[in-house]
């Protein structure tokens, strides 16, 4: 295929939907059989700005539980990943396979049983409950990224720090963790996206008590006015992108400052 036709194909598949979303959010009355909207208006945007509180609360809540999920998975996986990257022990392959299953089997299968457990432990309808269930579903991505990170890191830094008298915890936090930051960010962005875009698990365990952006969006999807849903969908696209760009630039700057790249 010619390069330009490939690029064109990619744009039709992946960019055209975004263009449609932009048009649809600016043209509340866009209907069949118009290929191009007859009139544009900011009605939906104004409506959203006037009723911004529930949207902002949902956004904030989604950000909060997604970030907490990233932190939880990091704490869960850091030490085990170092073991998996460095030590050989019997049953390792089997254990690794078992540990990756939560991301493969349908999340409903354990989440609905867990719901019962969480009601007993009074974790249902709480932020902690939501973070825990999201962490169980998404930690394999963090785990894989950290194991790969530890493997590329090798053992030299560790040996060097130990020879200089650093304790294991200090080695982990002061030497290895900063060097692992790219792996943490790679795994963390996947975990963040999974948590941020999940609808069902938050709905099940949060039970409406934990607001989420997806929960805000779902009722709008079936309404006849598609503009509001289109705007919220666009926010979904641009917020994570903005977050990743900010993260990337700050990280590069921080690394430059310390002369690491």
């Amino acid at each position, binding site marked *: *295929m010619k390069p330009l036709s*490939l*690029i064109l194909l*990619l*744009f039709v*598949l*992946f*960019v055209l*939907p*975004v263009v*449609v*979303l932009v048009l649809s959010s600016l043209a509340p009355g866009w209907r*069949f*059989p*118009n*290929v191009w909207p007859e009139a544009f208006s900011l009605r939906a945007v104004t409506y959203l700005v006037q009723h911004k509180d529930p949207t902002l609360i949902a956004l904030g809540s989604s950000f909060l539980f997604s970030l907490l999920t990233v932190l939880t998975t990091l*704490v*869960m*996986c*850091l*030490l*085990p990943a170092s*073991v998996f990257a460095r030590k050989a*022990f019997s049953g390792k392959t089997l254990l690794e396979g078992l540990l990756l*299953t*939560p991301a*493969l*089997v*349908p*999340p*409903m*299968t*354990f*989440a*609905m*049983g*867990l719901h*019962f*457990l969480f009601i007993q432990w009074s974790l249902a309808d709480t932020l902690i409950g939501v973070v*825990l269930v999201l962490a*169980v579903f998404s*930690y394999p991505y963090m*785990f894989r990224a950290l194991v790969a990170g530890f493997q590329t890191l090798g053992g030299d830094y560790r040996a060097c720090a130990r020879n200089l008298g650093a304790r294991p915890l200090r080695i982990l936090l002061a030497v290895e963790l900063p060097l692992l930051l790219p792996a943490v960010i790679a795994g963390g962005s996947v975990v963040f*996206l999974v948590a*941020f*875009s*999940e*609808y*069902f698990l938050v709905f099940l365990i949060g039970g409406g008590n934990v607001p989420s952006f*997806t929960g805000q*969006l*779902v009722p709008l*999807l*079936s309404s006849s006015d598609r503009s509001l849903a*289109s705007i919220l*969908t666009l926010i*979904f*696209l641009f917020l*994570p*992108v903005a977050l990743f760009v900010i993260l990337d630039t700050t990280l590069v700057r921080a690394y430059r400052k310390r002369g690491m790249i």
Partner: protein
Amino acid sequence: MNGTKTLLKLCPLLVPYAALFCGGVFLTVGQSFGWMTPVPYDGGRFEAYAGLLSSPSFYASFLFSLQVGAVSAFFAVTVGTLLAYGVWKLPVRLQTTALVYKIPLILPHIAVAFVVMLLWSRSGILASLAHSVGWIDTLREFPNVLYSGWGLGMILAYALKGTPFVMLLVMALLVHFDPRQIQTARMLGASKARVFFRIVLPRVAPAMHTAFIILFLYSFGAFDIPFVLGESRPGMLSLHVYNLYFKRDLARRPEAMAILVIMFCFAAFFIMAYSGIVRRLESSERKV
């Protein structure tokens, strides 16, 4: 001593895994037998399973979920691999532009479902396009893609969401691929198709297998997209579970849980069978 230390270091992961994942699955299984249900259950231990296995609508839903999962994953893997290979061959200055493929990766499933709805519904953009070109005169003439009974809407949504995922995994392998291998094969007279099937494909096959397992099982059992686009008959298994769990009598809890247990067992069986077959194929190829 060393073993204990290793075990201790694995604890941060093993404890939540055992308590939350295994515990969750255990409770799902338990409730499917009528233990620990919210209201006392007076049916037999295997009544929920017997009921499911004798109901034709359960089989229909199971097959429907399988079909949606398999077709969408197959499409995503095929198209994603071809596109990834294409992007990898692009001149460097165009590679940045090709990054637009990541857009559906960021969009949540429900948003991708919404995009499919905007484009493919009978009053959607494609219907309008067909009208303006003159293929159809009224809405009703546009094929009813979203409610065809074949799950086409869901397949489109899963394929749109899955294709970039496949591209990501395949391109991660292609990064380390030496283009001189292709040049050599071409100089020795291999056709473009032969180069793709004999040189590139074996190279990226591991990523394709991983992607297929992940995408197939996800679309087999996930809830978000069917919830937005779902057709009710036969309907995806996850939608049935949802209806039984939230909308029906609490006494039917074991039935919902039994469906989940069957889904879980199928997923576990599929992972083992698929990776077993792949391993056998690879070892037989190496012998040749």
